[in-house]
């Protein structure tokens, strides 16, 4: 990485984000105390631990708000490592002049979501900064939970022949936010922001479970590219199998976005051993969040290794690469 300033592209969740993270971690890695690259860390004593900051704009969006998002984001990071959402810490950095009621409203939705999944607030911090110090409010969550799986879920478990499952239709959070930002109204378009724990808990005892990932910034496409690159295996997807609702499809058509890269906040990618997919999909579908859960592809050993390919609806084939920079709406 050169000494250029950090841009919004570095915050978009694709390859540039990966480069920035790796650049920033250098000091820790060279001392041998850097983290593994998963959604949550596994720490001694059988716990998982995560931290996640939220600066969404707008702070209220169809399907949720920043408080709900903060709890879901943290809890989902734990859930995909097989850990229950036990304890949460919240740090608020608030710009002077921010309405008290609005801040309390976000705490109310955070508390409500915590209540639904049995998570309690164990720690917190509040800072107020002068006007311009932050834009409105930054909410950061930190969460700890006990790991409930017989063995640790990790992308290093990925093997040839594994099936890839997605738990619900993709891209709804990113599409809802993009619609708000670009003043487009799409009937029925809502963020998928939701805690995954109730849906994932029933499959944690399954022996064939290899790894799970929360498809947040960068979307499903980025998660699968990371898996392919880390394992050196080829992930082959079927476009027709990937659940995608009409609203997300229309918004992406208008703005020129690829749904594969649109953020989700209540959707996981799951890799499972051969022969286990059917059972796991059936269990997932029992949750109202995952009625669209389905197998979308397979892990293969052949070429192109370390990459994701997609068999398109019309029978063609192409690559799915990690996105670069901000998702920018196209001209026409």
């Amino acid at each position, binding site marked *: 990485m050169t000494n250029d300033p950090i841009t919004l592209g570095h915050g978009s969740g694709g390859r540039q984000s990966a480069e920035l993270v790796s650049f920033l971690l250098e000091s820790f890695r060279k001392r041998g105390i850097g983290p593994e690259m998963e959604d949550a860390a596994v720490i001694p004593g059988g716990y998982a631990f995560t931290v996640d900051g939220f600066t969404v704009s707008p702070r209220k969006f169809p399907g949720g708000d920043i408080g709900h998002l903060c709890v879901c984001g943290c809890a989902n990071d734990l859930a995909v490592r097989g850990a229950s959402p036990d304890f949460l810490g919240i740090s608020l950095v608030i710009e002077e002049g921010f309405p008290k009621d609005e801040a309390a409203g976000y705490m109310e939705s955070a508390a409500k979501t915590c209540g639904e999944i049995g998570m309690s607030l164990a720690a917190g911090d509040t800072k107020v900064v002068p006007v311009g110090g932050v834009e409105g409010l930054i909410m950061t969550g930190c969460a700890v939970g006990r790991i409930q799986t017989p063995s640790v879920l990790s992308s290093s478990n990925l093997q040839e022949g594994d099936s890839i499952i997605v738990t619900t239709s993709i891209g709804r959070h990113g599409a809802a936010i993009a619609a708000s930002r670009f003043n487009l109204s799409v009937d029925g378009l809502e963020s998928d922001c939701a805690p995954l724990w109730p849906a994932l808990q029933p499959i944690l005892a399954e022996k064939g479970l290899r790894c799970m990932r929360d498809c947040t910034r960068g979307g499903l496409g980025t998660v699968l590219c990371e898996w392919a690159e880390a394992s050196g295996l080829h992930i082959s997807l079927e476009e027709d199998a990937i659940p995608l609702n009409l609203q997300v499809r229309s918004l992406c058509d208008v703005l020129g976005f690829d749904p594969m890269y649109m953020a989700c906040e209540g959707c996981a990618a799951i890799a499972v051993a051969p022969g286990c997919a059917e059972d796991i999909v059936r269990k997932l579908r029992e949750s109202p969040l995952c009625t669209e859960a389905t197998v979308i592809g397979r892990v293969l050993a052949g070429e192109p290794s370390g990459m994701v390919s997609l068999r398109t609806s019309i*029978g*063609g084939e192409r*690559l799915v690469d990690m996105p670069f*920079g901000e998702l920018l709406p196209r*001209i*026409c």
Partner: protein
Amino acid sequence: MIMPGSAGETAGLLRRISRTPLSVMEVCGTHTVSIFRSGIRSLLPPTIRLVSGPGCPVCVTDQGEIDAAISLLEKGAIVVSYGDMFRVPCARGSLSSKRAEGYDSRIASGAMDALTVALENPEKEVVFLGVGFETTSPATAVLVEETAKRKVSNLSVLSFHKMTPPAVKLLAQDPELGLGGFLLPGHVSVILGHDPFAFLPRQFGLPAVIAGFEPDQILFGLAEIVRQHESGVSALRSVYSRAVRPEGNQKAKAALERVFEVRDATWRGLGVIPASGLTLGKKFRAFDAEVRFDITLSPGTPPPGCRCGEVLTGRITPPECPLFRTKCTPASPVGPCMVSSEGTCGAYFRFFKGDRS
């Protein structure tokens, strides 16, 4: 005339009827991306070569135009433009990197967003970069008329707008390219109608088909081009009749007439094409950023080694450029064809398996 079928059926038909080699240019960047995204190239027989044309608005924007936009930012103006423009680099940075330095560049999803920005920032000069072809120029025309009507004095337009038919004509008569047919842009034709492209069969005997953007419509258009090519009888056909009326969109054309004047324009890779650009007409000079900020648009120098010009005219494919995937990647693009979501190099990089596996 070929009858519409499913994408799979049409691809099968196309493979059956194609006998002799044929190079087809898809003019429009949206076609290019749809072709890559749907994997159409992997379904075509070896006889068919698809050449991506100059129909990506960002890609044909000249370096001198990008320089002018950056200089406006440096003069303290708020620059509003479409997202695609934001990462196109010039020697002094891009709209995106300038924003990281604290300059005020903003992404619009439509031209009228610029008016909102101007009204919200009455103490600042706001400039809208008018970029694109007949699909975006009518919106700029409406913005200019509305700005004049409401006497918004802090908003002006820097027009890089270009017209598609003159560029298509230039490429059609280039013997070196050897193009045997054109897949014509659906959205541009919605505005222009059929006539402006009728010279292709009439003057050059080339098959020309206006198509929509879904993979089945593109394949249908390609199959019709192949059919014409094999039968030796060429004509202008629209396989996008649900959207394109033969006479085009009269209202949009009238708005263009009222607001713009035709001028020569510099296209990246194609050079100066006479009477191919649009500048604000006399009546609207007060809202022309070139006048207000005393800018003279002059052809710029492309980055060293960049062969976007040759990519844009179909002379080389992206992997033939020595910078492709080495110095020029989506993360650090050298030329606009890698930057834009509709650029040929970006599409090759993201979607194409052929040169990597």
